[in-house]
C-alpha cells in the first residue's frame, strides 16, 4: 500500500521539507546525501522491507559497472555484464513472474490431467521494481558497450537510482543523461521552480480531475461490458480507458518531471501527445517514450534491429514488443497486448515497404486524417486488450469494437450518459483540451511564461479545480502495479 504518493498530503509536506532543506544545505555533496536519504525514506515509507531489493540492485550494479570498465579481458567483461543482467532480470523474474508462471504450470497440469501442482507462492510485487531495475541495467549496459564511464561515487549512483520523483513509476532514466547534472550544486531558481510547479500542477490536475473522474465510468463499464449489446458502449469504454490511462500515467510522469525541475534536475519527457500519432511507430515514439526507447536501445538493437533482413526485423519487433508487454505485468492480456502492438508495428513496416504509407501522403489532408483514424482505432482496440482480463469478455468486446453493431445504440448511449454524465463530461472536456493544445502547438510552460499574472491565475484555477472537481474515490496510479 503506497502511503506517500504525489497526490497525497504526506507527499506535499515531504516535498516542501526537501525544498527547504535544499535551500539550507550549502554543499553539493551533502545535498546529494540528503536527497538519497529522503528518497530512501520515501521508498521505505511506501514499501517497508522491500527497500532491501532496491539496495541490492543499486550496490550490485555500481560495483559491477566498475568491474566491467576496469577489466580488459573481454570474456571477463562479458561475464560481469551477464552477472548484472541475471542479477537484475532474475530479481524482476522472481518478484514479478513467479506467481504467473506457477499459475501457468498448474493450468497446463490440470489441462493434461496431471497430479503435480505447485503451491502459489503469493509473492508481493515490490513497488517500482520494473522501473529501477531497467534504470540500473541501462547503466551497466552502457558501460559494457563503452558508451559510459562508471561513476566513482556511490552516493551519486544512489542519487540516480533512488531519486524519488522517478523511483516508483518512471520515467526510466539513462545514466549518461542524468549523471552529468550532478556535477552542479542543486539550486532552486525562480525559472525552474515556476516551470516545475506548472508541470506538477498540470500533472496533478490530469490525474485527480480527469483520470480519476473518468475512472468512475471505466471501472463500472469494464466490471461487466457484456450487459450492453451494441457497439457504442464498447467505443466509449475503450475511449474512456485510453484517456484514463493517458491522464493517469502522463499525469504522474509530468509531476515527476515538474518535481525534479523545481530542484533544477531535468528528467526526460515520457509522453508527447500519443493520440495524435498517424502510425504505430509514431505512437510508440510518443507513448511511454522512456520505455520504448529503452526497449529499442537495449533489446531491439542488440537483437539485430533491422540490420539482419526483413524477416529477422519483424521477429525482432515482435519479440521486443512481447517483452515490452510482459514488462507491464505478468498476465496473459499483457502478453497479448505486447504481441498485438508488435503486429501493429510489423504491419506498419510492411505497409512502408509496399509504399502504402506513401499513398496516404499523396492524399494530403485526407490521407493524414485517414492514417490518424486507422492508427487510433487500433490503438484503442489495444486498450481493450490491456484492460480486460477475462478472455471471453475480451472476445466479446473486440467483436463489438471491430464488427460494428448499432442495434439499440441510441438507447444504450442515453442510458450510459444518464448514468455516467459526470465522468463522460470530463472525458469530452479532456478531448477538447487535448485537441486544442495539439493544434495550437503551444506548451503550457511557454504559454504561461509570457505574463506572471496568467501563471498565478493558472495556479489559482488549478487549485480550485483540485478542490472542487475531485471525484468521490481517488484511484491508485495504474502504473504502480507495474
Amino acid at each position, binding site marked *: 500500500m503506497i502511503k506517500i504518493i504525489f497526490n497525497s498530503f504526506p507527499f506535499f509536506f515531504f516535498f516542501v521539507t526537501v525544498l527547504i532543506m535544499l535551500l539550507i544545505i550549502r554543499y553539493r555533496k551533502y545535498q546529494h546525501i540528503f536527497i538519497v536519504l529522503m528518497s530512501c525514506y520515501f521508498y521505505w515509507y511506501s514499501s517497508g522491507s522491500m527497500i532491501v531489493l532496491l539496495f541490492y540492485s543499486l550496490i550490485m550494479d555500481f560495483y559491477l559497472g566498475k568491474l566491467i570498465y576496469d577489466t580488459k579481458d573481454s570474456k571477463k567483461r562479458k561475464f560481469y555484464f551477464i552477472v548484472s543482467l541475471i542479477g537484475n532480470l532474475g530479481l524482476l523474474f522472481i518478484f514479478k513472474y513467479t506467481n504467473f508462471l506457477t499459475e501457468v504450470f498448474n493450468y497446463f497440469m490440470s489441462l493434461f490431467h496431471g497430479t503435480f501442482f505447485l503451491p502459489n507462492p503469493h509473492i508481493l510485487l515490490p513497488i517500482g521494481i520494473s522501473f529501477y531495475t531497467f534504470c540500473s541495467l541501462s547503466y551497466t549496459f552502457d558501460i559494457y558497450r563503452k558508451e559510459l564511464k562508471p561513476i566513482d561515487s556511490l552516493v551519486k549512483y544512489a542519487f540516480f537510482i533512488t531519486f524519488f520523483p522517478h523511483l516508483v513509476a518512471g520515467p526510466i532514466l539513462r545514466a549518461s543523461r542524468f549523471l552529468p547534472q550532478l556535477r552542479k550544486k542543486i539550486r532552486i531558481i525562480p525559472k525552474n*521552480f515556476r516551470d516545475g510547479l506548472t508541470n506538477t500542477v498540470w500533472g496533478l490536475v490530469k490525474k485527480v480531475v480527469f483520470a480519476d473522474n473518468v475512472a468512475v465510468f471505466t471501472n463500472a463499464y469494464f466490471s461487466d461490458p457484456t450487459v450492453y449489446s451494441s457497439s457504442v458502449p464498447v467505443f466509449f469504454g475503450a475511449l474512456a480507458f485510453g484517456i484514463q490511462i493517458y491522464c493517469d500515467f502522463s499525469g504522474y510522469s509530468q509531476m515527476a518531471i515538474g518535481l525534479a525541475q523545481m530542484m533544477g534536475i531535468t528528467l526526460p519527457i515520457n509522453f508527447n501527445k500519443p493520440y495524435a500519432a498517424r502510425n504505430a511507430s509514431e505512437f510508440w515514439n510518443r507513448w511511454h517514450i522512456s520505455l520504448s526507447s529503452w526497449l529499442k536501445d537495449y533489446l531491439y538493437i542488440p537483437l539485430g534491429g533491422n540490420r539482419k533482413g526483413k524477416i529477422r526485423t519483424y521477429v525482432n519487433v515482435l519479440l521486443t514488443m512481447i517483452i515490452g508487454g510482459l514488462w507491464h505485468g505478468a498476465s496473459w492480456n499483457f502478453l497479448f497486448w505486447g504481441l498485438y502492438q508488435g503486429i501493429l508495428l510489423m504491419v506498419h513496416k510492411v505497409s512502408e515497404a509496399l509504399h502504402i504509407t506513401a499513398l496516404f501522403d499523396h492524399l494530403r489532408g485526407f490521407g493524414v486524417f485517414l492514417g490518424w483514424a486507422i492508427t487510433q482505432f487500433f490503438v484503442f482496440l489495444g486498450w481493450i486488450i490491456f484492460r480486460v482480463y477475462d478472455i471471453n469478455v475480451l472476445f466479446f468486446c473486440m467483436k463489438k469494437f471491430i464488427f460494428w453493431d448499432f442495434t439499440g445504440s441510441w438507447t444504450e448511449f442515453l442510458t450510459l450518459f444518464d448514468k455516467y454524465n459526470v465522468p463522460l463530461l470530463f472525458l469530452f472536456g479532456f478531448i477538447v483540451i487535448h485537441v486544442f493544445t495539439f493544434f495550437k502547438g503551444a506548451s503550457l510552460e511557454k504559454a504561461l511564461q509570457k505574463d506572471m499574472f496568467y501563471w498565478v491565475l493558472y495556479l489559482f484555477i488549478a*487549485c*480550485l479545480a483540485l*478542490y*472542487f472537481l*475531485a471525484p*468521490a474515490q481517488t484511484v491508485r496510479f495504474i502504473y504502480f502495479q507495474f
Partner: protein
Amino acid sequence: MRENKKTIIIVFVAPIVVLVLSTAIYMLFISDFRGYDSTSTRFIHSLDFYENSSPGSTFFIGDSQIREDINCNIIDSLHGVAANYSPCFNLGIEGMSSLQYALIQKKIIDAGPKHVIIGVSPLFFSEGINSNKNLFFFMGERRIMPDATLNSLLNSDEKKSLTMNSYLRALYKRRFILPFYESVIRSTLGKRSGQSLPDKNSADDAYFSSTSSGVYSEFKSSFLYTNAQTEEELQKKLDSPELLSPFNNSNNRERESFDYLISNLYNSSIILTVVSMPLNPLLVEILNEQSLSEYKSFLYHICTKNQIECIDLTSSFSQDQFIDLTHLNAEGRNSLSKYFFEKLITIEENFSALTSSPSTFPTLIPRFSESADNPVLNSTQDYILEIIETIK
C-alpha cells in the same frame, strides 16, 4: 535587480498565497454542507439546528424505508386540529445502519425529541445490504467520540475516519460536490421538460411554502424515488442470495448497536416505538422463514427487555402499494402516514395520562409477539386496510 527581486517574490510567494486563498474559499464553501448530497450529509447539521429550535417533536429514524414511507407533511397537517401535538420530522437516511445511529445517539438525545419512532426490517441489520459508506456522521463541526462499547464495535478504518481532523473532513466532503451539481442539473432539466416528482402534490407544496425555509422544512419529507423499479431490476434483487436470509447474514455488531441505541434513548426519557416496516409480499414470500423468525425474536427480545412498544407492519401492505421490494408508493405512504397520525395521538394520550400519575415514565405494553396469530398485529393490519379503503 529590482525586477529580479519582484520575480523571486512572485514565484515563491504567489503559490503559497494561491494555496491559502483557494483553501480558504473551499473551506468556506464546504462548511455549509446542507446543500450537498441527500439527507445524509444534512443530518447532523439539522440535529444541531433542531437542538436550538423547538424541542419535544417526533423523530422518525431508520433507513430509506423511513425516508420514503413516511410523509410528515400529512401527519402534521392532520394534527393541525389535535391538541398536545408535537411536530414530526423524517430523519430516515438511505443505507443507514444501527451502528451509525448508535454513534450519533447523543446528538439525537441532545436534539430533545419527545418521541422517537425507529423503523427497522431484517435488511436494516444486514451490513451487506444496508451500507451507508459516506460516514456522514462525522461531518458535523465536532468529532464523534464513541464510548468504550461502541469503540469495541468499530473497525480500524472507521476509527480512523472518526478521528479525521477538520481539514481532512472538509476534503472528504469533496465527494458530495459533483453529485450535488449533477442533481441540480438533472432537476433543472427535469423541470424544463415538464417532469415532476410524482409524490409531491399541491398540498405538499402549500405546506412547504407555509413553513420556514431551510433545513427545518427539508426534513418534513424527501421522496427521492421518482421511478418505480423495472421488472428486470426487481428480479435481479429477488435473485440475490443475500436478500433471501438477510437477518442470518447480519452480524452481531449491528444487533449489539441496536440494543445499545435503544437502551440509551430509553434511558433519556424519550418515548420509543420500534416499527417493523412494511415489506413487499413478494419479498416476504421468498424470505427465509428462519431468518424472519430470528429477526422477530430479536425485536421481541429488545422490546420486552426495554419495555417499549413494538409494532409489526411487515406484512400489512399489498404488493400494489410498493414501488420495489421495500419502499412504498404514494398510496402506501399516505396510508402509513395516516396510520402513524392516529398512532401518535394514542401514544400522546397515553403519555399524558401516565405522566399525570405518580409514575415518572410510562411503561407501555409490548405489542409485538413471536406468534403469527397475534391479535394485536391482526388488528393493526385491519386498521391499515381500513385506512386504505378510506383513501380509495
